[in-house]
């Protein structure tokens, strides 16, 4: 009997799209907050109720560990580098990420090299960055999903959310388990995101040889091997 991959593909699609939907809300709220001609850091505080509620309520709170807006350098009149970024915290109350963001004093935090920033900057509608060790924000093994924020046709920055790989894996694992082993999800580069087999774990690299089915509309693919492992 052939097990259809369709339910797994649609589960992955739905989980990912839910996160992107939340990010697009952040994008829209950011566009509204950036209405002033020379926006300031304080203008972005308007995003906070939305960011906090995405981190604390509803099914997305089990997935999204951090969410916010990353300003293009020079966008804000009073801070050349700025993230309006909030994260879940064990206390249950979101915390703002505070970092020295000036590359002149901190070699770590020139954020314009990260794919979650470069993807939106070149106009990619959906960027899935990772899995990667996110030593900028969480020190965890994460995915960062992002979308461009444009104001008057100009790139203003990225709206984004962090999803820990372990939580993403938990969300898609039941669907993957329905498939014969091995079945695993890879990103555009071939890095394994989630898997139903110990042979292919998240973080390992798939280098070809098995059947690959793209997840519609996303830079993710489902890889399936011959049933006997």
């Amino acid at each position, binding site marked *: 009997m052939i097990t259809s991959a369709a339910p797994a593909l649609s589960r992955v699609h739905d989980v990912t799209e839910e996160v992107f939907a939340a990010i697009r809300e952040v994008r829209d709220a950011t566009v509204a907050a950036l209405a002033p001609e020379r926006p300031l850091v304080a203008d972005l505080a308007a995003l906070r109720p939305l960011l*906090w509620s995405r981190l604390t*309520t509803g099914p997305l709170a089990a997935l999204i560990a951090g969410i916010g807006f990353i300003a293009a350098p020079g966008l804000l009149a009073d801070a050349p580098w700025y993230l309006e970024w909030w994260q879940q915290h064990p206390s249950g109350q979101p915390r703002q990420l505070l970092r020295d963001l000036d590359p002149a004093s901190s070699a770590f935090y020139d954020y314009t090299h990260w794919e979650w920033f470069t993807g939106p900057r070149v106009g990619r509608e959906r960027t899935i960055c990772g899995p990667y060790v996110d030593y900028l924000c969480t020190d965890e093994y994460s995915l960062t999903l992002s979308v461009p924020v444009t104001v008057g046709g100009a790139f203003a920055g990225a709206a984004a959310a962090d999803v820990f790989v372990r939580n993403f894996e938990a969300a898609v694992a039941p669907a993957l388990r329905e498939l014969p082993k091995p079945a695993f999800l890879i990103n555009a*580069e071939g890095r394994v995101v989630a898997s139903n087999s110990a042979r292919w774990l998240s973080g390992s*690299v798939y280098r070809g040889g098995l059947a690959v089915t793209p997840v519609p509309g996303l830079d993710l693919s489902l890889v399936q091997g011959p049933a006997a492992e």
Partner: protein
Amino acid sequence: MVSSGARLAVFSPVDSTARVEAVVRRLADAIVLGLLTDGEQLPSEAELAARLGVSTVTLREALMALRQRGLVETRRGRGGGSFVRVPPDSGLEGRLRGLTVAELRDVSDHYAAIAGAAARLAAGRSLPSDLAPLRRSLDEMAGCPSPRLDGRFHIEVAAASQSARLTQEEIRLQADIGPLLWLSRDTPEGQDEMAKQHQAIVEAIERGDGDQARLVAERHVLDATDHLIELRLRLQD
């Protein structure tokens, strides 16, 4: 509607101890490394707090700790403000005196294990997107070596292992001993040798040669700690 949990966050006490320590360490290291020089005036409290991304309350606590350690002096009145003070024993020697040879050997063993394991895994798992930051750091270091770039490079290697725990350990070790290791090799020959080792680590990772990557990463740590231990042994207690 904002959830009640989110509303509570507005008024929750901010955990500031970690931030105070982070600011103290950053400024103290900058003074030890000579990035801030004796007598230099620090920016105003408000400006410094904004640049470091902390509140002025946190900054004031950090300045108080630095004053107690004799690293900052505050003068009142016209021409007043906070000034950097470099005590005679605050450099490499001063820091080294605070560590015993046994401690240095132990850190060295720990660090070599972490760096070696991370480099081996990175060789098996890295993709072009992991190698790009390593190459960028090598290029930047070729132009202008600094402990900051050196630290970033090693954290990028650890991150390429795809292991969050190894990366967290690398970050901790960098904070503990990174600047000191760098200082111990801060001579033209030392810099040259470090650059060659960095290059060899990246090449082994690029080739996917895990055994070689582990070997050169361990060698890199052990060479630096050897130098540090030699320096420590020469110091009179």
